[in-house]
Structure formats: structure tokens, C-alpha cells
């Protein structure tokens, strides 16, 4: 329920002053999510896969991860989608490790790295902060995730 803490903290005048926020006195409270925007979203691309192809062609590094206890955008959804890219496998499927524990599974393709994060929900760094930090570090270094 940590989202509730944010709803209180970011509506405090002293916090908004310190953040130089809400300087124009926005006529509604700060909220974590805008229901208005969410219900009136105007345009949404049916598939992002063509964008991935453009980015790969331009040499942009692409990593995709998935917390495997999320059921909103679950790991099977991501795997079905990425499978449509039909990428060549560079390093076949293997478990990756953080501090001698399985962090998840990963596969490295030409142009994209996919990794699951074991036991993490939708907000992976919230549920598995240390594993997420190791994933982030490997992404920045562009190195495959550790096998032990």
C-alpha cells in the first residue's frame, strides 16, 4: 500500500515547495495515477514490435525483463510477444544468479536480452530490489547476466 504514502506526502505544501512543484496551483490534487487521462487515452499503438525492429536497426541496446509473479502483464505475455520478432539466439536459455540464488532465467538474442526475475511482481525493483539492481548493472555494462 506504499502508493498511499505517496498520495499523502506529495500533497503536503511543504513538500511541493521543496520540489518547486505545483507552482501554478493545479486545480486538482496530486495523484499517483490520472483517472482522467487513463479513461480518455486517445491513441495507442497496437504493437511496439515494429519500433523494437527500428531501434535494433539503429544499434540501440534493448533489454526486456519480467517479474514472474505479476498477472497484469505477465511473463508469458512478454514471451509470446517477443517470439514474434523471431530473433536469432546468441546465448541459449540459462538461469542467472545473484548471491548464489537464482535471480531468474535469461536468453540473449541478436539485438535483445530477455530476463525473468524470480518472485517479483509488476514493479520488479519494489519486490526484488537487489536482483533488480544487478539486472540494471548488467544492462549498463551490456554484459550477459551472471551464470553463478
Amino acid at each position, binding site marked *: 500500500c506504499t502508493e498511499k504514502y*505517496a498520495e*499523502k506526502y506529495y500533497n503536503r505544501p511543504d513538500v511541493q515547495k521543496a520540489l518547486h512543484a505545483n507552482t501554478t496551483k493545479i486545480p486538482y490534487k496530486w495523484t499517483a495515477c*490520472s483517472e482522467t*487521462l487513463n479513461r480518455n487515452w486517445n491513441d495507442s499503438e497496437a*504493437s511496439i514490435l515494429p519500433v523494437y525492429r527500428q531501434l535494433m536497426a539503429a544499434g540501440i541496446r534493448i533489454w*526486456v525483463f519480467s517479474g514472474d509473479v505479476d498477472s497484469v502483464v505477465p511473463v508469458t505475455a512478454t514471451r509470446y510477444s517477443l517470439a514474434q520478432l523471431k530473433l536469432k539466439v546468441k546465448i541459449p536459455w540459462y538461469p542467472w544468479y545473484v548471491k548464489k540464488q537464482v535471480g531468474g532465467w535469461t536468453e540473449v538474442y541478436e539485438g535483445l536480452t530477455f530476463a525473468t526475475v524470480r518472485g517479483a511482481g509488476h514493479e520488479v*525493483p519494489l519486490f526484488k530490489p*537487489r536482483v533488480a539492481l544487478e539486472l540494471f548493472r548488467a*544492462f549498463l555494462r551490456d554484459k550477459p547476466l551472471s551464470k553463478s
Partner: protein
Amino acid sequence: REEEEADRIISLPGQPKVTFQQFSGYVTVNHVAGRSLFYWLTEAVSNPLSKPLVIWLNGGPGCSSVAYGASEEIGPFKINKTSSGLYMNKLSWNLDANLLFLETPAGVGFSYSNTSSDLYDTGDRRTARDSLAFLVHWMNRFPRYKHREIYITGESYAGHYVPQLAREILSYNANSKHPLNLKGIMVGNAVTDNYYDNLGTVTYWWSHAMISDKTFHQLVNTCDFHRAKNSDECETLYSYAMDKEFGNIDQYNIYAPPCN
């Protein structure tokens, strides 16, 4: 220099003492409509000048606010239970990078538009365009980041925002004398493809024993997963699955109880 200094955060209420710098404020992305996006930069704990710039976007759509990434995932602070103050996140990603949290599009969090109709007709396209405009103008306020390595990261519906902003940057770079040094993107539990996401989602529900065989087959046979908007029959099935068969769980973390 003055604009940067005006955005400097001295200290947030209830914040522990820190050594890294932080800045926050607004960048106008559309003068005609009066749209301004709010950002919060928390620089790296050590050697910020040699560390990359990592932009973090949350999803929704409409939820890319500092409530998530910044305050409960990768940011340096977490909010305590009484919202009276902050405590340190020892595994913050600003151990390795300068983190730029962006509330986008206008209407999210502290980001606003002076044209109220903007909240009723924003979508992927405007969000990507405004986020690019933000980044270009922001770089003028923080010129030390102009040639820095940039990574864009995020989760959920930011599975749209992140690649779309990257695509905007590629287009901008093609015509700019000062290209942005975009190196990579990373997305988590990312909305990617309507059809395969939907098919994969109901398959996950079934393979994790969250729904019955009957409901699974009805969903697969009734719903057209290509459509962004479900038919009424399909919608009824989804509601039955979530309300009657999932039961009392947190869909974002299926082995935990829901937040009451």
C-alpha cells in the same frame, strides 16, 4: 545556471542527509497549449559527472508519476508509513547512474496543461513528442548532460512510452547538429503487443491455476485479442475471471493479499 540553481533541492521534508545533488521543476514543452512537464533528478551517489543519465518512466497510461519508480522502486528515498518523512533506499539505482524521473504526459502528477481539453485527447503520439521536447529543453538547463550516455527505462505501459521516446530521439538525431547520445532502453513487464500480450496473459492465468479450464477456454474462444477494446461478452468473462476465480489476491503480485 540560474535556472539550474532555481531547481536545486536543498532538502525534502523529513529527508535524511545525503551527499548527492538533486533538482526538480518544470520544463515547458508546448507554449501554445501551456503544457509543462515536471521532473526530478537525483544525481549519482559518486562521480556523477562520469555516470550515465537514466530516464525512468512509469505506465498506466496516466500513471507515470513519482509515486512509483521514484518513491517505491529505484529512487534513493522511500516514504515512511506516516508520510512524515523519507528513509534511504540502500539499493537505489543512483548508486550507478544519474536518475531522471519524468511525470509525463501533462495531466500526470505535477505535470500540467493550461488547456484542460488536453487531458481528454492525449495518447502515445503526444506523450512521445512532449517527452522529446522536454529532454531537448532540459539539456539546455543542464548542459553537462548534453553528451552523456542516455538510457531510457520503465515498466508496464511505459513499454509504449520508452521505445516511442527512443524512436523520437532517433528522428531528432537524424536532423540535429547536437544529437542526443541514446545508448539503450530497458523495460519491465512491458505492454508490447495487444494480441500476444492478451493471449499470453490468459495463458499465464490458466498455467498458474488462477482460473478454471472452463473460463480459460471461454476467454480464448470468445475474445478477439487483436482488438484494443473488448466486446461486452469478452468483458463479462474477464470480470468473472478476476472477481470470481482470482479471488482475494493482488494481481500485481499474485501470491500476496490485495492492498485493502
